[in-house]
C-alpha cells in the first residue's frame, strides 16, 4: 500500500500528469489537425476550442477530435488535392501541352529515322556479304545449259 502511495506521489507521476493533462493534448491536437487541408478553418477552430475545454477533459476531447479529423479532415484533404490537380490541369496553357506533344513526337520520329538508317546500313552490309560469299562459292562465268553444274540443267 505504501509503495502504491509512493508511486502515485512520485515525481514521475507528477511529470506524467503534467504531460497528459498539460502540453500533450495541445501537441497531439496540432499534429492531428494537420490532416485537414492547410486553408481549412477547422484547423484553427479546434486549436482555439481546446482552450475552452477543462483541463481534465482535454485528453479525451483530443481523442474525439482524432475521430472527427479521420473522417472529415482526410476526406477534405483528398477533395482539396483532387480539386488542386484538376485546377492546375485546367489552368495549364494548351500550347504548352501541344509543344510537349510535338517535342515527344519529334523525338519519336528521330528515333524511328535512326532505326531505319541503322537497318538500311545493316541490310546493305548483309547484301554485300552475301554477294561476296556468292562470288567465293560460285564461279563468275555461268555454266551452259548442257553442263552438269548448271542448276537449270534438269529443268525443262
Amino acid at each position, binding site marked *: 500500500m505504501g509503495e502504491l502511495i509512493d508511486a502515485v506521489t512520485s515525481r514521475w507521476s507528477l511529470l506524467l500528469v503534467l504531460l497528459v493533462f498539460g502540453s500533450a493534448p495541445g501537441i497531439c491536437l496540432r499534429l492531428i489537425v494537420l490532416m485537414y487541408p492547410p486553408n481549412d478553418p477547422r484547423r*484553427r477552430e479546434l486549436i*482555439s476550442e481546446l482552450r*475552452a475545454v477543462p483541463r481534465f477533459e482535454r485528453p479525451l476531447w483530443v481523442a474525439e*477530435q482524432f475521430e472527427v479529423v479521420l473522417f*472529415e479532415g482526410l476526406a477534405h484533404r483528398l477533395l482539396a488535392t483532387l480539386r488542386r490537380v484538376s485546377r492546375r490541369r485546367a489552368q495549364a496553357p494548351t500550347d504548352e501541352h501541344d509543344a510537349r506533344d510535338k517535342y515527344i513526337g519529334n523525338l519519336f520520329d528521330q528515333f524511328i529515322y535512326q532505326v531505319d538508317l541503322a537497318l538500311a546500313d545493316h541490310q546493305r552490309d548483309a547484301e554485300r556479304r552475301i554477294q561476296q560469299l556468292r562470288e567465293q562459292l560460285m564461279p563468275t562465268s555461268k555454266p551452259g545449259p548442257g553442263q552438269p553444274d548448271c542448276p537449270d540443267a534438269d529443268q525443262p
Partner: protein
Amino acid sequence: MRKTHALVQVAMALLDEPTGRHWGYDLSKRSGVRSGVLYPMLTRMLDEGYLTDGWEDPTTLQDKRPPRRYYELTDKGRRELGAVLQEARQDTRFASLQWRFA
C-alpha cells in the same frame, strides 16, 4: 438532412438562443452530442445555409488565447430547424427527448 437524435438535440440547443452566437464546445455540452458527430453536422448545416460562421475579433479578447470560431443561425436555419423540432414532437422515435421540449 436526415432527421436523427443528434440533429434534434443540436437543433434544440441552437434554438435555445436563436439569435445568439454558438461555439463548438459549448454546443456539444448543451446538446449532449459528441464532438465527433457535432462538427461534421455543423459543416453540413453551413453547406445547407442553416448557419453562418465567423471569428472572434482578436482585439476584443480579454485573455491571451486564439480567437474562436462561432456559428449563428440564419433565417433559413431557424425556419428549417424549427420545422425539424415540430416534426420531432409528433414523432415517437424522439419520445425520449420530449422532456427537453417543455
